[in-house]
């Protein structure tokens, strides 16, 4: 498969869209970034990343129903696509493969 480059921030956003599962839109992604990583980002950066990811085909979006919130504006809800999932997996595999090659490194296994 043709490898499309995934930037660090893009990867983070892509992961969080997957995590938020059906409730991912600009503000929720931004808040999630802050809570999960402690990083504070501007909404415009999140929008830009979401747009790029959609253009690359890793995300798809649809409009929510309009509510009285948000000045009556609809949310654009994002969901990860098959290609997005594949890109994430590929990225993870690459990293794991590389980690394995570091001598004396014992992978931390999730005990949960």
């Amino acid at each position: 498969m043709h490898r499309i480059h995934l930037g660090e921030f893009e990867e983070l956003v892509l992961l969080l869209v997957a995590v938020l599962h059906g409730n991912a839109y600009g503000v929720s992604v931004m808040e999630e970034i802050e809570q999960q990583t402690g990083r504070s980002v501007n909404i415009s950066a999140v929008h830009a990343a979401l747009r790029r990811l959609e253009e690359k085909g890793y995300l798809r979006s649809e409009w929510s129903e309009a509510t009285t919130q948000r000045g009556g504006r609809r949310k654009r809800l994002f969901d990860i696509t098959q290609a997005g999932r594949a890109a994430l997996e590929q990225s993870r595999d690459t990293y794991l493969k590389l980690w394995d090659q570091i001598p004396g490194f014992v992978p931390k296994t999730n005990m949960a």
Partner: protein
Amino acid sequence: MSTAKPPRPPRWADRFLEWYCRPELLEEIQGDAYELFDVRCAEKGPKTARRAFVWDVLRSFRLSTIRKITLQFSPDMYKSNFKIAWRNMAKHKMYSSIKIGGFAIGIAACLLIALFILDELNYDRHYPETGRIYRVVAEMTDGEFAGKGVDFPAPFAKALKDEFPEFEKVARINPNSLFTGGGNPIRRAEATQNTYEEGFTFADQELLDILQIPMVYGDPKHALDEPNTIVITKRKADKYFPNENPVGKTIIANNNTDEPVKIGGVIADFPPNSHLQFDFLITMKGVEFYPGEGNNWNASNYHTYVLLRPGTDIVKLEQKLMPVIVDKYLGINLSKAEVDRVKRTGRIYLQAVPDIHLHSADIHDGMSHGDIRFVWLFGAIAGFILLIAGINFINLSTARSANRAKEVGLRKTVGSTREYLIAQFLSESLLFSAFSFLLGLILAWLLLPYFNQLSGKSLQLPWLSWWFLPSIAVSTILVGLLAGVYPAFYLSSFKPINVLKGNLSKGSKNSSLRSALVVFQFTTSIVLIIGTLVVTRQMNYILNKKLGFEKDQVMLLQGTQTLGDKTQTLKKQLQQLPAVDAVTISDYLPIKGAKRNGNTVWDVKKEQDGNSFGTQFWQVDYDYIHTLGMKMIQGRAFIEAMRSDSQGVIINQSLAKKLNFAQPLGERITNGRQTFNIIGIVEDFHFESMRENIEGMCLVLGNSPNMVAVKLHSDNLQKAVQDISATWKSIAPSQPIRYTFLDDSFAQMYSDVKRIGRICSNFAMLAIIVACLGLFALSTYLAEQRSKEIGIRKVLGASVGSILGMLLQNFLKLVLIALVIAAPLAWYLMQEWLKDFAYRYQIRWDVFVLAGVAVVLISILTIGFHALRSALSNPLDALRSE
């Protein structure tokens, strides 16, 4: 939720977002921003939330979010835009040519003045070390010598070099004609015939080191370091030593065969934009103009230039200069009180060489300089002319809007956008601008020789400079857009429904703005006219003021010192001529630039301190007072028979007033070297420019044989000059006669005032022409517009006179308003200008009346033609088509 209004994000930021954001992205971005605003409001309060909202909006302004610019750059569109513009232009030939012609005049004026200003600003920037070269200036704020000067004692330069390590090099020049600087007759050693040359100065070798003027022949390091050497410029070398290397050859100056001077080197000519303009630099090595001069701190004759070491703190250095020089040198022979006074009221500072040309108006240095105020003045005048032309463009475009309104309406109806219409109107004004610039360039090129004459410069259009054509192109676009932007927005704003219904009142809309612009045009023109009148009057006032001496029919023979003993013979022979009234031998003449000799004198009975007065101290002969037609008001002039007159002095009224003797005749005054008896008081006469007050004056008997003044009384001037020339020839066959007339030299003193007057009047004329062009077109147009109204009025019995009055009154009202605004403005400005003169013309009301009548007459003539034509027209022609 409470009933209070919920806080809202800043409206302008929201609008800005809606304005720039792509429609397909707007809902998402705006929605998220609102949501964040609400969240932040709850958490941190509305103030923080608002700020954060603005920040979000600004941060979202990205290339990926902003609308695509909707202008389509299709060449076809532009082709059609320009085609339509061209057709419009060709259809209304008169309006087009007035728009273009007016603009072209404005542009030509701007171009010429820009060249002038560029030239003025580029003086003395060509030396390799320009940034480190300074001229030393002394300033006294108090006392008899208050003012700024650049003359320093001979040992001053060495003292600077010894005391301050900050000076890398210090050089003196002495261009004073007292010491044969200025003009001298010279010849090659082997030649017999002298030629008179000007541009002599004494100079130190260090001057060459500091300025680093390129050398054509000779060693720049040693060209002037031997006694009796001289450096000449390339053009003089070509004149006297064509096709040879003159270094080592000798020339003879002033017939002084005992001390021929050796040429040490040939330098490149000083460029025209250098404040130093010399052709002959004579070394100062081994020169003392009188014994002990090298250590004399009491006579100041040397301009001093310095080269600073890199990184010198000038302010700090300047603070040290005066105290050190006074303590160690100047003040040695002065009393304690005097030293303190000099230190308190005087300072020595450094003037950067590029500043000398434009910023020396208040410095007495005997050179003629430009003046930064004139640079501003001319710049402003050029700007105003361009503005007047621009207003013509705007007024004509909007006035004729009715003609274009249908076009706009129809275009909009068939789907044209406003942007497209603006683009079309702007292309039109660009086309106008391009034509105007082309014509303006041609005009400037044609007028340049005339302008050079006017401004006394030799300017050229810098066609080949890399920046010239690009900046013309940029200006074309800029001027086109600026002049076109208002009409474009105005014309494109018409609503098609109104236009096509015929609701648009014809050309009258926005007439208040148009009137204001016309008033502005005429105010500017009237100010210029009044300014010109005042300058001319001041000029006449000076040239005709009673001067205290007779300047007419006085012939000045120059270079007479070369005759040696025969000068007296010349005088005697000239006195024999029938056309000659009187003859006097003296270098000192009451015109600026003639020889001067400053001295301090005081009453012998009193202390020098506190009682001494700076005066001029002139050596004259017995016939001086008579020849120059001065008037004695007390005592008598010098008499040859009175032996004691060699100890006598004639003082002028202003010195008499300062000395304040009860009975001045017979009192004794001294200049420290000699004591004189006052034998007479002469009426004050102007011996400097009328910018200055008349200072004190002492006339004593003495020999100063450089010039001979001859008073003529003859109707046949030509014959008199022939006779005098013949007499001269018989006495000095090897020396061509050189003469001028005193009144010419006098007029020369005010050539700069004359020049300003001429430049002002020329540009005032241009301004009024451009303004009238606009008025002409505007009135023509409005008369056309009202042709039906006029027709009906005539049918109903209006007389030609009443219609004419109606048409004229509209515009005359504007002109009169302009007059009312312009008169006090011009009065104030001209008062400021006149402050420059100690003796000035009093502005009277008739100047304003004259200017007013002129402007009203010109505008009546301008408007009248068309007004009369429409008033006389047959109403049938106008009404037939209805």
